[in-house]
């Protein structure tokens, strides 16, 4: 499991290697054809900032060769915002007094139909972490009902065991996204005072279980702004790299959620500038040419429009982050506020203007049928 690989690197040692990396180290890492773990450290370093333009060019070229001139679109469907966890940074924190609900099957189908009519064929189902309110069987039922409609259905819900993921895969789920939030174990404990999510090792091994169950796509990421983004970036890359080697049939994706304003008024502990985020995205691409890189509507229009050609391959559009958000029924509060609130048509037009094709479908449900 990844925890064993993770434990080989201490947070402080990694931090030191990153911050001590020199310009020569950065040059050597950029010029090596096959990157190894030693190349990871310099590219996350402050020294690499001097090479950001070169890195952007390299990231752009690598992405074009591997993925072509296409950007894949998806949108989230929040099924529930009920949660038993105590994440200090999250709008769904159990202690936050917000409107909560779990959609009925009919309400989910209504949301899904609206999403389908917008043109999406790839959908991400989300919940808070409350297994009693949203049991696995309920998620299976939803997946089975949506399977005929959408080409690809992924999940971003509470961590499960292999058998649960395997059953969901049989019901039509093909992907899993799970953020470790931060790989800084000490900080992780402080940010999750109680609840199942406090179990660092259970969470960090979730992508392993998902991939082992046969899911086709696994996404990882850190919540940028919690700890030092350079060190969290290193560990995220290490995690993705590990998954790609061990689960070689699985497509790995990396997301870049930056802390947004949410209920509970948590403020980012570390500032992550647009330039930092650009370095992070380009570094991921340079280190892992084949990984999917996902940018959500958390980010501003300006940033998304400009970063798009430099390495991103998947974008969300028209996102609503509350259950019932697409139907405009005021049942529940948002997880966080979205910054880029353009409609899917506007996003598709922007993508075309940038010289890319917006891809609504790049999978098929028939891959999973037995």
């Amino acid at each position, binding site marked *: 499991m990844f925890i064993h690989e993770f434990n080989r690197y201490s947070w402080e040692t990694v931090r030191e290697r990153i911050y001590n990396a020199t310009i020569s180290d950065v040059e050597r890492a950029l010029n090596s054809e096959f990157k190894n773990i030693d190349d990871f450290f310099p590219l996350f370093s402050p020294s690499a900032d001097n090479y950001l333009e070169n890195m952007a060019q390299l990231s752009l070229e690598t992405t*074009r*060769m*591997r*993925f*072509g*001139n*296409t950007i894949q679109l998806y949108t989230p469907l929040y099924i529930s915002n009920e949660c038993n966890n105590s994440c200090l940074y999250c709008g769904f924190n159990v202690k936050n007094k917000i409107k909560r609900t779990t959609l009925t099957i009919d309400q989910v189908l209504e949301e899904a139909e609206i999403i389908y009519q917008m043109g999406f*064929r790839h959908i991400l189902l989300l919940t808070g972490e409350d297994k009693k309110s949203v049991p696995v069987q309920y998620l299976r039922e939803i997946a089975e009902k949506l399977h005929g409609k959408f*080409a690809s259905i992924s999940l971003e819900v509470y961590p499960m065991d292999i058998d649960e993921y395997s059953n969901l895969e049989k019901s039509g789920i093909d992907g899993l996204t799970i953020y470790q939030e931060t790989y800084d174990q000490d900080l992780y404990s402080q940010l999750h005072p109680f609840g199942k999510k406090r179990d660092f090792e259970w969470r960090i091994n979730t992508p392993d279980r998902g991939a082992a169950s046969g899911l*086709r796509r696994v996404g990882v990421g850190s919540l940028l702004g919690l700890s030092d983004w350079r060190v969290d970036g290193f560990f995220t890359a290490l995690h993705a790299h590990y998954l*790609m080697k061990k689960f*070689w*049939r*699985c*497509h790995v994706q990396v997301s870049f959620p930056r802390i947004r304003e949410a209920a509970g008024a948590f403020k980012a502990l570390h500032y992550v500038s647009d330039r930092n985020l650009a370095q992070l995205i380009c570094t991921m691409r340079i280190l892992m040419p*084949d990984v999917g890189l996902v940018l959500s509507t958390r980010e501003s229009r300006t940033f998304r429009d400009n970063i798009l050609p430099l390495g991103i391959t998947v974008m969300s559009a028209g996102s609503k982050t509350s259950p019932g958000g697409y139907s405009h029924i005021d049942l529940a509060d948002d997880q966080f506020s979205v910054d880029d609130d353009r409609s899917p048509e506007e996003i598709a037009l922007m993508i*075309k203007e940038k*010289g*890319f*094709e917006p*891809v609504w*479908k*790049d*999978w*098929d449900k*028939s*891959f999973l*049928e*037995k």
Partner: protein
Amino acid sequence: MNNNQNNILTIAGREFTSRLFLGTGKFSSVEAMKKAIISSETEMVTVALRRVDLENPQDELLASIIENPNIQLLPNTSGARDADEAVRLARLARNMGCGNWIKLEVTPDPRYLLPDPIETLKASEILVKEGFNVLPYINADPILAKKLEEAGTSTVMPLGAPIGTNKGIKTEDNIKIIIEMSNVPVVVDAGLGTPSHAAMAMEMGADAVLVNTAIATAGNPEMMAAAFKKGVEAGHEAYISGKAKITDEAHASSPLTGFLG
């Protein structure tokens, strides 16, 4: 090696005057793709079924290809992890009216998209029996190529280098063996980054090449497609006109037997 001594290439009973086939997955738009198809003068275009709405016979991507009657549509099973998935996709494609040509891509590894030889052979055997014209994408494995030929595939399609790498022909020796031993057309597919790579493949005796990334991601895909057309033609004509021996030394025209008169 098959029907490489003239300008007509025959695959599964269909004649082709162009030996350049096109992939379509990486273009910036359908319009860019159409322009490249025209300037390349290709007569066979492959489309990933994962990109197509398999329940909509009017799917835009398919329609933009089949509107040209000179072009053979070649759906592909890119993304299939095993024979079952590939066979399922092929059947779905035929059921929706895509015809019975199928480019078999069984690529369980999403990083390098390298083809699984065992699952490719398995799928080929099933699909050939069901009447498909199977064009299988493979690594440059001469034994696998013969087994696929025996199974009844219409071509073999060995890679020059992994998809999207533009590295050219890194599998030269094995491709030459495949060409020498094959009784079906050999189409070098994947990794061709420049028209000179395509020319090299044709000079080696390949019957055709398939190109996607190098054209779709070029600064000017339409112009690059035309350049590849010229490269393929040049390479093929060089092959059929017979190459001069490559030598480092100057030789008199009859060094050993000139004394015989």
